[in-house]
């Protein structure tokens, strides 16, 4: 409890420690703190910016996607249309072809039928003539009877 020299020595010691602190401790520590604060602020700003950029990029991508989707659907529509058209064309062509072939066949059939009918008519005429010859048992004038025969064949 005695006041003595210790008091003054303690004062001096304190001054020295404060001076050390002022010289070697406080400035570097505070500098690093300030720098880190600036760095963090910078980082936060950068992250804000990046967020904004990300949003912009997202919007852009969205619009790209939309465009692409539109284009794709357009293309699909066109293709569908074209497909339908091709199909229709082909169908029409096929129908026409069928028609054509059918008519050709019909014509041929008609022709061969005509031919057959003609042939038949000749043969029938010959037969009739032969028959009539047999019935009459005498030569008939074919020329006089031809008209008669023609009429007969037409009736068959």
């Amino acid at each position, binding site marked *: 409890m*005695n006041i003595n020299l210790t008091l003054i020595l*303690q*004062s001096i010691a304190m001054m020295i420690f404060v001076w050390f602190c*002022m010289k070697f401790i406080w400035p*570097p520590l505070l500098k690093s703190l300030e720098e880190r604060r600036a760095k963090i602020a910078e980082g936060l700003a950068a992250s804000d910016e990046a967020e904004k950029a990300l949003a912009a990029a997202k919007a852009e991508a969205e619009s790209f996607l939309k465009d692409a989707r539109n284009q794709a659907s357009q293309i699909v529509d066109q293709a569908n249309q074209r497909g339908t058209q091709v199909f229709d064309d082909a169908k029409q062509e096929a129908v026409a072809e069928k028609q054509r072939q059918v008519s050709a066949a019909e014509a041929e059939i008609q022709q061969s039928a005509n031919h057959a009918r003609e042939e038949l008519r000749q043969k029938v005429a010959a037969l009739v003539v032969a028959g009539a010859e047999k019935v009459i048992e005498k030569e008939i004038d074919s020329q006089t009877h031809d008209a008669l025969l023609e009429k007969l064949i037409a009736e068959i």
Partner: protein
Amino acid sequence: MASDQTNAGHEAEQTASEYIQHHLQNLTWGKHPDGHWGFAHSAQEAADMGFWAIHVDTMFWSLLLGMVFFFLFRSVAKKATTGVPSRFQSAIESIVEFVDASVRDSFHGTSKLVAPLALTLFVWIFFMNLMDLIPVDWLPWIAAQSGISHQKVVPTTDVNATLGMSVAVFALIIFYSLRMKGPGGFISELIMNPLNPKDLGMPVIFWPFVMAFNLILELVSLLAKPVSLGLRLFGNLYAGELIFILIALVFAAGSGYIGAGLQALFGEHIPAFYWVGAALAVAITLWLNLKGKLPTKRTVLLLAIELLLIGGLAFAGGQLMHFGWAVFHVLVIILQAFIFMMLTIVYLSMAHEHH
């Protein structure tokens, strides 16, 4: 009565008041009345030295702790990175930021000195106060083993240390007052406050009386600053230290009491088989609990009874009281360091301001 089993007294015949006084006596080195310099061997010798004496223990521990502060913070300051800080760096930085915020809040001015001063005072005083939590007998006992008669390990329980710091702060107050206000401004602040004769419209003939009155008031309030600053810290820590010493004393006296009971039973020397048996009993109780053959609740009860029988309960009681007071004292330690720092900041802020 302290028995020889305690670590409180290294001299067998030591009364309670001797024990306390021994703990409150600094290791003093100084000029003896007969003119030669040397250590004081008793409180009387230390007192006879008067002013020319140094409390070696106070200086040793305060310088040591100041260096601990310096190298601790310097090691961080040297490799302080602006990147991700290590845990230790974060801890140091949080203290620095706390001090920095306190200074920014309370100090209205620009000064390169105040913030480092506040940091140094806060951490240094905290470290010095922290010595109070080391059980009061440990370091003095070690010192006694190495032949040092007295050892007071908490520098802030020495009024020289606390007043030394507050006087240094006072010098700074005066220095800044003179620098910021000029000698004229400083003197006018002392004599024209709180009653300003000019503003009161007094005749000039009364001015000297009013000025003298003001000077007395202002000088008292000026001198009260360092005195209250130093004595507040000293008083708090001294009282805390004293309570730790009293607890240590109670613990020592308690085990002495039971020791006396054992002596009544066994005579002067407690036979070895008693200690062996006691140790075995405790060991067996613990072993049974460990093997799961004894419920923990019953183990605790059994151990308490055994310890009471052995005479160790007083030891446990003393430790509990020491712990309880230490928990409370932790608050005091931090609070007093903080108050010293804050008041220093405020005083220096006042010295910077014009009225």
